[in-house]
């Protein structure tokens, strides 16, 4: 990556969120996350009010209808294998555990962004962290496929979670600007 790069901001410089970009982002991430929870969120086979049941369901394979529209929404990006997916309300989630973690991490980072923007704005270490996490994902999948180790629902969830959060933080510059500067209309 050659050429002129934007430098890291001065230490201690305040960073503000751009509301008209940030608000749609959060809404989009929230809707996507809710959809990723699958049909169990709005049409559960078991009551969601049973907290113990919900927690138990996070480790049990639930019912699924692979061609239900909720699963088809994510069909292009996730295989949604039942044995590799959480279930909610007795119904398999729309994505596998890694993707559940990914979308959860995206949403978490999005909600946290206003609080941490000044710490991550244009910081190179955020990109480095993203690169490392992406490499770990590839290694995890490859090792599991090769039979070197077996990952679990929760290990995949947390790996996806950190990757999603790192990705969102890596592009924070698109939703924030240094305080005291106006937002360019061309951007």
């Amino acid at each position, binding site marked *: *990556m050659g*050429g*002129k*790069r*934007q430098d890291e901001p001065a230490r201690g410089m305040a960073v503000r969120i751009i509301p008209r970009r940030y608000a749609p982002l959060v809404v*989009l991430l929230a809707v*996507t996350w809710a*959809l990723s929870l699958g049909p169990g969120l709005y049409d559960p086979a078991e009551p969601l009010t049973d907290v113990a049941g919900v927690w138990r369901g996070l480790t049990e394979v639930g019912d699924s*209808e*692979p*061609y*239900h*529209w909720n699963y*088809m*929404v*994510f*069909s*292009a*990006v*996730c*295989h949604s*294998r*039942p*044995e*590799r997916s959480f279930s909610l309300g007795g119904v398999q989630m729309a994505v596998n555990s890694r993707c559940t973690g990914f979308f959860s991490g*995206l949403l978490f980072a999005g909600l946290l962004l206003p609080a941490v923007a000044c710490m991550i704005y244009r910081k190179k270490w955020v*990109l480095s962290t*993203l690169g490392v996490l992406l490499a770990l994902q590839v290694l995890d*999948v490859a090792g599991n*496929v090769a039979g070197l180790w077996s990952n679990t629902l929760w290990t995949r969830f947390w790996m996806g979670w950190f990757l999603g959060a790192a*990705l*969102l933080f*890596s*592009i924070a*510059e*698109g939703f924030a*600007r*240094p305080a005291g*500067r*106006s*937002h*360019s209309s*061309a*951007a």
Partner: protein
Amino acid sequence: MNDSDFRNDDAASGSYWNSALLIGSLFAVISAVISLAAGYYQISQEASGSLFGPVAISGTVVCLISALAGLAAVRNYTREVTRTLSFGQGAVIGLATAAVIVVVSTALTQLWYLIDPNYLENIMESVIANMEAMGVPDEALEGQIDAIMESQTLAGTLKNAVISLGVMGLLNVLTALLGVRLFAEREETL
């Protein structure tokens, strides 16, 4: 802002589709090849009781490939057109790339059904055999078969393509924004 800025914007905006079409088509072809290869492999295997079998592995690869298309499209744009790119423009490139992937993938799949008319039938038999091996009740099995048949019609395929564009678009927008961060020069705000 002067006239040259507007002219540059007009020329640049018209070039978005070049990168989106090129990269989107390329990624769609790669994804289709991987998916078809996995499909033929599944057809050749005995029913394992796992609904997706080797398709699941290919699905993971296809997912990663497709999600990175936005980043690749931005990279292509900054190399071929201009290095100056805003996050908003990058998001548009990502979304356009996702749309191209969905359209081209759908077209390639439909085209393959014409090239190998037995492929769809064989995949259906494999999926049904796996469902029976999983012990899916007959009622649920019939419902799933109906859903599968409906999804394989042209209307069903188009419907699924449209609804899958949402998440595919989101992922490619995010990776396109990452591409802007990595490869583009952003205009400094006043």
